[in-house]
């Protein structure tokens, strides 16, 4: 789900960088408002590295397999560190493995990062009305995973297909958008299930991780 270099025109990649710059600025500003902003940096960094590594885990979906994205879980656990974490993770993926690209780093961060922030707010709702329970952690974890991945897929498909530098007719374009979106539905639910299972696991094993950084 990374858009590579060369496809998108300059105004779109430029707009992606602009949105990413503003969101990063806002996230860093919120982090700096904390009492000791540097205290959580190691925690956020190591969790970023762990998410990066966890994305190598493959889930079998016969006849193929998919890798985890986990941007909903990342948003749920990292809060305002989520967007900088995703930007850093995508930068390393682009420079190490050629996934994504340098000119599309902004737009890819936007596709993955904005839904992570939405997931952060959804997951916070588990504490509303009567406090946190194992069931509510699972339900809001699932919702955070599904919504984040759903928004990411929608952004990815629409941005990619509406910006191909070719004259694809409207009917073919719509058909391609629907086909790509439908192909991603299992991935969206697998992400939701994994997010729910990981959050309930963390609540049992190490609840402090769920309180965020």
């Amino acid at each position, binding site marked *: 789900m990374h858009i*590579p*270099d*060369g496809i*998108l*025109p*300059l105004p779109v*990649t*430029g707009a992606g960088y602009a949105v990413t710059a503003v969101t*990063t600025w806002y996230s*860093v500003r919120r982090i*700096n408002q904390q009492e000791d902003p*540097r*205290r959580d*940096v*190691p*925690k*956020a*960094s*190591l*969790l*970023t*590295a*762990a*998410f*990066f*590594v*966890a994305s*190598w*885990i*493959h*889930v*079998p979906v*016969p006849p193929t397999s998919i890798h985890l994205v986990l941007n909903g879980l990342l948003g749920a*656990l990292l809060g305002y560190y989520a967007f*900088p*974490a995703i930007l*850093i*993770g995508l*930068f*390393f993926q*682009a*420079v190490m493995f*050629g*996934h994504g690209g*340098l*000119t599309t780093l902004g737009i890819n961060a936007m596709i993955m990062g904005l839904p992570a922030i939405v997931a952060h707010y959804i997951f916070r709702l588990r504490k509303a009305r009567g406090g946190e329970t194992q069931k509510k952690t699972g339900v809001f974890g699932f919702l955070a995973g599904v919504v984040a991945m759903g928004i990411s897929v929608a952004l990815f498909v629409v941005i990619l297909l509406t910006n*191909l*530098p*070719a*004259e*694809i007719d409207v009917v073919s374009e719509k058909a391609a958008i629907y086909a790509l979106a439908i192909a991603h539905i299992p991935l969206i639910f697998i992400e939701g*299930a*994994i997010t729910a*299972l*990981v959050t309930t*696991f963390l609540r049992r*094993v*190490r609840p*402090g*991780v769920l309180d965020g950084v």
Partner: protein
Amino acid sequence: MKLLLDEYSGLDSPFHRWDPRYKIAGLIALVFAFSFIRDLRMVLAMAGATIIIYAISRLPASFLAHRLRYPSIFLVVIMLTLPFLSGSDVVATWGPLAVREEGLLAAILIAARFTCILTIGVVLLGTTPLLTNIKALRALGLPQIMADMALLTFRYLQEIGRHLRGLQTAMRLRGFRNRRLSFKGLRTLAWLSGSLLVYSYERSETIYQAMILRGYGNAPPRREFRGRPHDTYVLIVLIAVTAGFIIGDMMLGHHTAALLK
């Protein structure tokens, strides 16, 4: 896991000697200009400029070929689909398949831009150690928290990667086979991810204490780079080339079909 992007950063070339701050600014501007190009004559100029820049960098051709191996899968997909699906003017038929002009031009354009941008990216990141590049980004205005996070994330990627491989080996030894999609399998993979997160979280606590003991956050960052006049001249030349690509493409019409019409 192979993280050897900067394995040739110790070579000697004008790009290796160039101040990383100027190099980032100049080459990033150039790749953005490449993403602006639509005229096929400018695509040829872009390919020429890319070859010259890569030759000057003295990086081995095999290094570039290795870096292009995985992303070129994307290129193959683009070349195999767009010429047959996009456009109305048929230029050739091949059995039931018709090659369309607009799709073919778009595929050539995307493939060329993709390869050139990736090659310049290899020069940018292959001629300077990655950690120096992160420090250069910091000097260019990247927030301190982002620079610290990037350095720490990079530092612990390999260690956490090793931990994951250890856990996966242990799972296999206990009979786990990741072949079918099932709830039990998903739960096991979720617990594997959760264990990685717990391990990282606990590890970060001792790392933070060690960092505090070494004075983390108490000293202003050192001034790492000192630009020379030569660095500025090279940047000016590169900015002129960048502007040349944008102006040239606009003067030639900024459309893909210009060459064949």
